[in-house]
């Protein structure tokens, strides 16, 4: 791109015009010690909790411990150039990050600065990273669905707009895969997505970005990255940064989906910062406020009513509710959900998607454990047709789990037990789904309907997925109108039931798989 010289001088002129020549008043302090990114500062008697502090060399820090004669602060970024005796200034501002539409499609760090090499981000607004969650009066209950595009989740553990649904499981169980599929499925729905990567390898973050670009999902997505190589302070604030960016959409009457990948690492980073600040350690050496760390973050994911949106936008947006849906991710060690951080986050969220490594290894992917996974509020938001058809699936799987232990005695079992086991095996098989291939409501409805009506019972277990894909192809080519109708309304009625029944009957008679 050719730079126009007049543009540059104009820009400078504008900046000089806007330059405030008034005497600048601030509070100053002196650095007493620097240890592992924690700075003790003498003075700064007027510093606020969480205030941004200015260090020499264009470096900023955040005041965390306010003591009688000193302030304990974390440096946001590198601290090698800060030494004893340096002057520190108060800025009078709580830490703020840029927010707005311009961030969509970009990769930013925990302070909202672009790191994708695509140039500056033209945002007009900034927002403090720590905000109080909306009050009781401002809220509305969850009633619209967020389709994650995964059969097993949308049918059994539905997520609504404004809900907090935990994704929990050991390493290598496909937690991030669910999150990425969820983002890809939001293409064209108007839901803006924010993916916050905390303490991950840079290569994994690059992979996620590339996959989202490949599937055209970056246009509606912001990636906030605080990789493992960045300071603990940045890893600890990254979720709040992402949340502030999501709240911007929520407060304007839009819907947003935020994924925190993962909060275990954020708790580790916070533990590090707290211990270095000499706060007393508690259980598993976490500080006393690690519950509040997560509860205040997840409480900000909410659905707010139209009145509140109108108030927040100054009357510009009327009659629209806003929502921020959160999918926090927690990594467990050896399936232990009773460790400190997992129990905390389980109790804060509105349900959890529990992933198991033995399911994953036996080829059931997504490796959702249908028995332990719940959604406490999503049922109210589920699409009618999925709600109607998904109930049967849940029941089939529950009965199957009880009887699965007897499966090896199949020949000695009575007729009804054997049928239940066979149904369960087929439904389990049907719940498998490939990565990066989210399904629409209509596609899910077809698969679930086929299972409910017993069309699968005649299919061999290892042919179930082949049957499904052939059926989906048939429905797409021969019954496009019916599918469009289901996708448009999501309603369930006799006409649709009849349509599906006859379509699948014809398919079974005329096609092979």
């Amino acid at each position: 791109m050719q730079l126009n010289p007049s543009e540059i001088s104009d820009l400078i002129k504008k900046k000089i015009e806007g330059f405030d020549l008034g005497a600048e008043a601030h509070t100053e302090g002196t650095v007493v010690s620097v240890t592992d990114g924690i700075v003790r500062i003498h003075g700064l008697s007027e510093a606020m909790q969480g205030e941004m502090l200015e260090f020499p060399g264009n470096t900023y820090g955040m005041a965390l411990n306010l003591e009688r004669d000193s302030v304990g602060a974390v440096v946001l970024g590198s601290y090698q150039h800060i030494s004893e005796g340096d002057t520190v200034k108060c800025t009078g501002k709580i830490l703020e990050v840029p927010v707005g539409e311009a961030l969509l499609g970009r990769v930013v760090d925990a302070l909202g600065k672009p790191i994708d090499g695509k140039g500056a981000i033209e945002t007009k607004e900034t927002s403090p990273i720590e905000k109080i969650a909306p009050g009781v009066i401002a809220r509305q209950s969850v009633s619209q669905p967020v389709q994650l595009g995964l059969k097993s989740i949308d049918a059994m553990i539905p997520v609504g707009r404004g809900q907090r649904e935990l994704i929990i499981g050991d390493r290598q169980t496909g937690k991030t895969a669910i999150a990425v599929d969820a983002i890809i499925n939001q293409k064209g729905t108007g839901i803006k997505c924010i993916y916050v990567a905390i303490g991950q390898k840079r290569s994994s973050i690059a992979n996620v970005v590339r996959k989202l670009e490949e599937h055209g999902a970056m246009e509606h997505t912001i990636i906030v990255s605080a990789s493992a190589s960045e300071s603990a302070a940045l890893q600890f604030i990254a979720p709040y940064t992402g949340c502030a960016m999501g709240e911007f959409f929520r407060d304007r009457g839009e819907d947003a989906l935020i994924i925190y990948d993962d909060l275990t690492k954020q708790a580790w980073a916070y533990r590090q910062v707290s211990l270095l600040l000499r706060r007393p350690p508690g259980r598993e050496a976490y500080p006393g406020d690690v519950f509040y760390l997560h509860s205040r973050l997840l409480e900000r994911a909410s659905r707010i009513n139209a009145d509140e949106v109108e108030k927040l936008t100054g009357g510009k947006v009327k009659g629209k509710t806003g929502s921020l849906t959160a999918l926090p991710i927690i990594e467990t060690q050896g399936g232990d959900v009773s460790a400190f951080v997992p129990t905390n986050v389980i109790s804060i969220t509105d349900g959890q998607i529990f992933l198991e490594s033995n399911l994953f290894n036996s080829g059931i992917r997504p490796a959702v454990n249908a028995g332990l996974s719940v959604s406490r509020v999503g049922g109210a938001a589920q699409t009618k047709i999925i709600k109607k058809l998904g109930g049967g699936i849940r029941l089939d799987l529950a009965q199957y789990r009880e009887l699965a232990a007897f499966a090896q005695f199949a020949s000695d079992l009575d007729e009804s037990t054997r049928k239940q086991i066979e149904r369960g095996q087929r439904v389990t098989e049907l719940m498998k789904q490939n990565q990066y291939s989210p399904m629409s409501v209509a596609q899910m409805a077809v698969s679930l309907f086929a299972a409910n009506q017993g069309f699968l019972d005649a299919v061999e277990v290892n042919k179930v997925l082949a049957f499904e894909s052939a059926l989906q192809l048939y429905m797409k080519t021969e019954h496009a109108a019916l599918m469009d109708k289901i996708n448009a309304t999501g309603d369930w009625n006799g006409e649709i039931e009849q349509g599906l029944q006859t379509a699948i009957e014809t398919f079974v008679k005329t096609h092979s798989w």
Partner: protein
Amino acid sequence: MSELATLARPYAAAVFKRAKETGSSEKWSKALAFLVSILSDSSLSAFINNPKVSNERLSELMLSISEGQIDTEGANFLKLLVQNRRLNLVPHIAKIFEEYKAEDEGYLDVDVYAAYDFSKEGRKVFSAKLEKRLGKKVNMNVTVDKSLIGGVLVRAGDKVIDGSVKGQLQHMQKALQ
């Protein structure tokens, strides 16, 4: 530094309370200033920090040096500091004591750095303006600092009012980045 200030505060508060009771804050102020000046001597500070020197010998020495400069109460205070091995705190105690004294008397010690010295008139006008801004009587201590290029820089405790050309240039540098 901050830890020392925390340690010095109870001593300073106690001295200040006593000084107010007896109405002898000026005397205490002088005594503390004297102690600060003798403690800044390097051979004496080496002696103080030597663990081989017993408390008795140290207090004897300190008392003999300050004979005639401090009264009985001052001597008692000195003995207490020696006993607690807190002689290093004296400069901080003096500083906090002066802060308490200034606050009690309703004025504020202000360091003013200016590129050029004030005229008599200018000084009066400036101190009146500062008094209005800070809401307290000010005790101006003017230093000429050519590196400021122009304007003034005011320091009152932690608070800094930067109206110097140098400060504004730095400010502008950041704004143009």
